[in-house]
């Protein structure tokens, strides 16, 4: 019997679309026979079974081991993860689903612009036996953040939904909630506190160490998924630039190009002879191809010009593979790490 690797992805509208797009871009197209079904498969990896669940439940499914891998917001993971957890964060940043957990106060609190203001109010209120109530669905992260910022006197109000309404309905003074654009906060006459970002998060990939540790077949499937994701994410940070450079010989052109660190490439340039058309057919031209960081593209173009390049093209890379998948190596170490039994003697 072939073993099935179980991957759970978010079913909420925006996260679902973005995740399906991400997987497709990684070369892992999600095949769903019926859009109302909660099961799907990956065309290129038939041994992988995909299920759809609410982002907030995904952590629990991976934790209990009813699925092997999950994609969910890192905010959920940070809130629920425990120090001796079976859940391991394999890839922390998948490059989409960005959001932030922020402290927000009523817009009318014009005297509050920083966390310090809140700590002062909390301390003042403390002496008046008044309590600063914070409504949040992220009690662990919020509590730790407030402690870290010297706010020790507060109470957390657990709130299922409609957190933004808590201050105006009067069951909390301030809130700590997830926001991506800030629109919902504004609509509820709330404003984020300047330095009150508790956590910046995006989609991440998590795994159950014990489940993967039990099955070499599942580990191998996971490796293939990680290879694809890593290669895709890495490729997005690079572009391939090809420039025509005039020079005497291949070696001369190589020296000419490599004198400019911006265009020395990842390992070095690839140089090929160009058979130039008239009227340049008596000159020696070479095509030089290097991989450069996307955000340094303009620097590379300028450097090529200084090196005597005439025309340049830049193309996106689909995938970039390195000698190994780093996140897979990390996963292997995590899987091998056995549970630490606490010492019995002091």
């Amino acid at each position: 019997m072939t073993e099935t690797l179980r991957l759970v992805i978010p079913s909420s509208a925006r996260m679902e679309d973005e995740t399906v797009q991400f997987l497709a871009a990684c070369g892992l197209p999600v095949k769903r026979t019926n859009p109302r079904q909660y099961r799907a498969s990956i065309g290129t990896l038939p041994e992988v079974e995909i299920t759809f669940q609410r982002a907030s439940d995904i952590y629990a499914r991976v934790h209990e081991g009813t699925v092997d891998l999950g994609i969910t917001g890192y905010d959920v993971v940070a809130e629920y993860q425990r120090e001796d957890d079976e859940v391991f964060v394999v890839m922390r940043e998948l490059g989409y689903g960005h959001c932030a957990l922020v402290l927000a106060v009523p817009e009318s609190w014009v005297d509050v612009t920083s966390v310090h203001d809140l700590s002062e109010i909390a301390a003042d209120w403390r002496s008046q036996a008044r309590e600063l109530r914070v409504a949040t669905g992220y009690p662990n992260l919020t509590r730790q953040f407030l402690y870290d910022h010297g706010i020790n006197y507060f109470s957390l109000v657990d709130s299922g939904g409609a957190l933004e309404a808590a201050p105006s309905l009067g069951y909390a003074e301030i809130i700590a909630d997830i926001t991506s654009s800030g629109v919902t906060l504004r609509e509820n006459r709330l404003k984020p506190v300047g330095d009150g970002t508790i956590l910046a998060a995006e989609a991440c990939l998590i795994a159950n160490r014990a489940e993967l540790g039990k099955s070499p077949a599942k580990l191998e499937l996971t490796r293939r998924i990680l290879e694809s994701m890593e290669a895709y994410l890495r490729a997005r940070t690079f572009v391939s630039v090809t420039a025509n450079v005039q020079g005497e010989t291949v070696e001369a052109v190589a020296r000419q190009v490599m004198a400019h660190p911006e265009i020395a490439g990842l390992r070095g340039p690839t140089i090929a002879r160009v058979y130039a058309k008239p009227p340049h057919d008596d000159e020696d031209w070479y095509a030089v191809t290097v991989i450069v960081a996307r955000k340094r593209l303009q620097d590379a173009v300028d450097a090529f010009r200084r090196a005597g390049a005439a025309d340049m093209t830049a193309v996106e890379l689909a995938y970039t593979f390195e000698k190994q998948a780093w996140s897979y190596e990390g996963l292997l170490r995590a899987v091998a790490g056995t549970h630490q039994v606490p010492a019995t003697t002091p």
Partner: protein
Amino acid sequence: MDLPEIYSIPGTRDALPPQRAVERALEARLQSVFSRYGYEPIDTPILEPTELFLRKSGEAIASQMYSFTYWNRDLCLRPEFTASVIRAYVNHMQDRALPLRVQYAGPTFRYERPHETRHRQLTEIGAECIGAAGPGADAEILAMALSGLEAAGVRNAHFVVGHLGAVLGLLAQLGMDVRAQSLVVSEMEGLAQSPNDSAEVVERLATMLAGGTESDQLSQGALAELLQSQGAEAAAEITTTLFERANLSLDGGSRSPEEIVARLLKKTSRPDPVPGLRRASHFIRELRHLAGPPDQAVPALRRFLGEQGLDDAPVRDVERALECFGSYFDEAPPLVVDLSRARGLRYYTGLIFEVYAEDGARLAGGGRYDDLVRSLGGHETVPACGFSYVLEGLLAAATPKAKEQSARSSVDLVVAPIADSDYGAAAHSAALLRRAGLSVEMDVGFGGVNVNLRSATQRSIPLVLIVDELKVGAGSATLHDVRASSEATIPSAELVNAVLERLKAYA
């Protein structure tokens, strides 16, 4: 399929036999020291209302508490004993004659961050003297701490004695409010560092007191100057009008517009806390510099406080307490007077001390807390002081001799019936021996002679009594002396004496 193993929580530990017996014996020795000083046992719940420790224990502890809400009640696992003991005093014992001397022992809980999870549950053994003011009571606590260390077999521990009065006096002189004082006291270690290293602490405290972002710096600029030049009422009116004209509503949320405006104005007139903090840092660094053995530190500190225009009462307190302490013992323990020290708890008001092992591990700590009774709702101000040991620290510091005992099981003898039919006779013998005060283990599994001898050897149990039908019929049993590898047939009537005789050889 095997069910998964369940492990203890990180930072907690299982105390296993025979090690646990060593711990119990140590606890008992310390408790008997406290008893000999006239301290009576008290116990309080492990589970307490969170509020108890928020009131006065300080911010450091508030952020380390295991607190949670259960059925709408805010609860926590006690992070320390003193607040609980004082709560019990306030609840039940305010009508008792003072001073009241109590001792306690039990687990306390503090949440340490994952990378430092060594100890989230610690065993504290301590004592509180409620209703006694002055250096005499402080000295008794110090003396008891030293007596306990001797009983525990800890050698070469050293005492560091401080007094919060000096620093609190300076902070009052600087006009710092309660919150600023609390922050400074909680950061005394950081502020005592070199000017370069403490600068960072000063900056952090300044941020906590006055904010660090640009928008927090409202006390500069033309508007601030204008508002500061007005009286409080006029300034509030101007500000309120400005907001109205700008069509900015201050309604909504649980704070009134007046409250918001008042705080905004407070921000505009807030003095820069940095000079005060620098002064405090410098002062604490001087105190640290003057720390040393009492005969050097006391006169130097007295002079220094005088120069600073501060009352030297804290130094006199320490001096007198140490004199009293010295009269308890022929030889004074190594001791340093250091007024730059604070303890993690915010309720201390006077003399404080900590005891360290040779390797620097903290073994005990305590001090005077004269405001705590009142803060926890007591009718009157009741002076009090106390201290506690950390059992785990003491165990690690105890001399090898004290630890040696851990190898030997506390069981004196194993009674081993060979067959089911021997059970009755064996149980009878076991009962006789137990009545004689011995620790007797019964082999309820009928393991046979060899198994029992092997197990007794491994566990260092000195004797094994084999009970089998033949001998029982003859009114006797076989007593094996494990270490001497000898055996003897003992008549039932002589059993107890024979066993006691042989155990004497091992005592």
